[in-house]
């Protein structure tokens, strides 16, 4: 079944007639060509597909695009400044070597920003580790990701 959907992605209004079966992540990757959002599993565990919908981190592989009519969606491509300067969380991941192969990274960064926004700066190592339970990383053993989130939290303004 073909159905229309429209939403705002990274500040741009987008709309399309799509197969109702299209997942949000397919809409983002295949329809909009925003390939920074990744798919690492099919059971909603790995979190590589994490994006913001109306300010909340969600797994775009386990939701249909049509569920988000009218929503504000932000992907990894939408969080750096217009001039390309990285978001403090992105910068912290680079500084702390919180990424290796880079595949889980976009979802991890989105999830980390969401975690800081929800919990403010009062995050401990334990609460960061627990708060990243929706994201798998196979490369880093999470050690430097935890450090990156701590640094990113400290450097995020207005939280």
């Amino acid at each position, binding site marked *: 079944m073909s159905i229309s959907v429209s939403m705002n992605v990274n500040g741009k209004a987008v709309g399309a007639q799509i197969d109702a079966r299209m997942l949000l992540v397919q809409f983002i990757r295949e329809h909009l060509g925003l*390939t920074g959002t990744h798919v690492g*599993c099919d059971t909603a565990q790995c979190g*590589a597909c994490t994006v913001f919908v109306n300010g909340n981190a969600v797994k775009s592989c386990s939701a249909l695009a049509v569920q988000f009519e009218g929503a504000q969606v932000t992907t*990894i491509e939408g969080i750096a400044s217009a001039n*390309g300067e990285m978001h403090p969380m992105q910068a912290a991941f680079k500084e702390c070597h919180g*990424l290796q*192969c880079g595949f889980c990274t976009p979802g991890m960064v989105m999830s980390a920003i969401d975690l800081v926004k929800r919990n403010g700066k009062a995050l401990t190592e334990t609460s960061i580790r627990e708060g990243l339970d929706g994201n798998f990383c196979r490369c880093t*053993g999470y050690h430097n990701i935890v450090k990156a989130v701590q640094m990113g939290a400290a450097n995020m303004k207005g939280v």
Partner: protein
Amino acid sequence: MNAPEKQPGMGASVRRKEDYRFLTGNGQYTDDVRVPGQTYAYFVRSPHAHAKIRKINKGAAMKAPGVLAIFTGEDLAADKVNGLPCGWLITDVKGQPMKEPPHPALAQGKVRYVGDQVAVIVAETYLQAKDAGELLEVEYETLPAVVDASDALNPGAPAVHDGVPDNRCYLWSLGDKAAVEATFAKAHQVTKIDITNNRMIPNAIEPRAALAHYHRGDDSYTLYVTSQNPHLERLLLTAFVLGLPEHKMRVIAPDVGGGFGSKIPLYAEETVIAWASKKVNRPIKWTAERSESFLADAHGRDHRTHAELAMDKDGKFLGLRVKTTANLGAYLSTLGSVVPTYLYGTLLAGQYTTPAIYVEVDAAFTNTAPVDAYRGAGRPEATYVLERLVSAAAREMRLDQAEIRRRNFITTFPYQTPVALQYDTGDYKACLDKAMKLADVAGFPARRAEAEKRGKRRGLGYSTYIEACGAAPSKIAGMLGARAGLYEAGEVRVHPTGSVTVFTGSHSHGQGHETTFAQVVAGRFGIPIESVDVVHGDTGRIPFGMGTHSSRSIAVGGSAIVKALDKIEAKGKKIAAHLLEAAETDIEFKDGKFTVAGTDKSVTFGQVALTAYVPHNYPLDKLEPGLNETAFYDPLNFTYPAGAHICEVEVDPDTGVVKIVNFSAVDDFGNIINPMIVQGQVHGGLGQGIGQALLENCVYDRETGQLVTGSYMDYAMPRADDLPSFKVGTHVTPCTHNPLGVKGCGEAGAIGSPPAVINAIIDALAPLGVTHLDMPASPERVWRAIQQAKRTKVA
């Protein structure tokens, strides 16, 4: 050769050049690549562990919307497409070659594991291909299946391959059996263990994918694929399987989202779509769903071992004998045969002076996914056997876990082991001492007592491991059955204005080569790291190389680059001598400047580069223009990273839950170029090793052969809150036989950590009477071990 001096550019934690693109969503992974007109492939896979294919009816599926073609094993056979090759021939105890049954890319007549490829459907969209897959009628006649290697070797077990009725691929041995028997005859004490090395699913977060594009215009192919070794992939695919000349295929492994060994092999899927893209004259993309990755990625480990250690009255090791049964899966994967043999048996000396060692490996075909390299590949299995055995021996001899190790450490180098390897250098005691400080072993008794007050049990576990990396001297590999060389290639292209592009045969899928290799080059030439870019992963651009595995990139790939740098420097000196009107032998190169020794006359590296490309004032009669050098490096020996890992656990005896409260690792990787990246590699390896020890386990149903742990709902991946922060340190003894003095660091964490974890749990529970545990040490397993020990104590 003496230990090389420290090179310029080494030792700084330069932040990674590749990170910006990954962090901003600008990485380009295989599934991100789209070409006009691309179609999609869906693989119909066997739902049975073992069955004859009676009939395949394409009719209904072919009529489904969007379907362009359906191919089966018969179509491949008709086109004389060969099976997938194995890269290493093992010779068995009787001098006979291993059994090498055909490995068709699409099943021919029979399916041998759940997930075995039966047919491919090519359609305009992936959903259409998948929908049509449900309409493909395959008639199976199911056969009894066998998934456990020991079961498979029992008389009367179902034969996975008709040509191998006993399922035995080989019975292989290494070492002097008679010498070992003699040591056991005079032993004061013999410690014995029976252990399982649990089967693992590698689980790189990027699922495998490929995009095959046939170009009719020049009868050539471009294949994008998630590979750790694009040249090896191309060689196998063209020369061995499809019968094409290599130059007609360009293999590109773009950004690859983790490998861990699972992206070394040539797989059926990319083979089939490359072939099919010519048939349909359209590009074809295939991306694995995670469920397919579970079924059809090469798995790792899966050993069962009985091992015995003979000691004298002081706990000195006299002899070691090991009998291992290894599961190879249904087919021989690219490196499937060598992992449980030369990458395993040769490591059984560990860090110890055990004078006599004998190992036998019985390798079986089963109705499971092929087993191949997984981070460490053979070396973690060897380390697990040895380090469990040594800690068990310490308990039986009433010796401290550290003390028994110290008594047996190798202290003089080079050291020839009784299992073929010759260690060039190391300082095992120094690593252990540092690790014990890092782990605050001195404070452990107080921590244990404090935990006991809370009803918890604490334990310390040791593992002092060695690995053989930097594979490998081609001559030795060839003598042992390798079907390829194991050198590496590097090309250094200096551009006219002095910036540099490096082309390497190594492949980076997380290791940070774009930074580390650039550091080596920038340091050598005295130019900013921003002026150096590293290109890898594209057979159309890089020289022929063997790719990235067995922690070989810096030791072998880095050495090739250094050799090319040597050539550049030598030529640069000639050019500088001409410009400075001095003798070539008087030219020194330092800090980016060619200087006439003892004078202040100099030219910069940039000036020399420009002169090479704009040779107006140039010795054209003696020297070619240009500054572009390629080198191939074949290693003289393996490298031998080694280290000491100490794990501290706290066990909740009421539930069996194990918490790692402290993990300390001190590793000797030789010289270190980028400590930040090296530490990251250690962390990642530890994550996987601890994952194996506590969480991960691939399980097939013993009756039906179905994969029970077929998704993340049942296969326990380590999450952030499953792991501790790690304490890592290094101790440096430079490698003596490569120009950078480096050893490799990619696998150490996964090799050293599993026995440290299990030894720690056993140490925690030993007062309750627990002496053995298998991986993964799940809460129920630990709880049961405690209950069992309680019952034994009462009885």
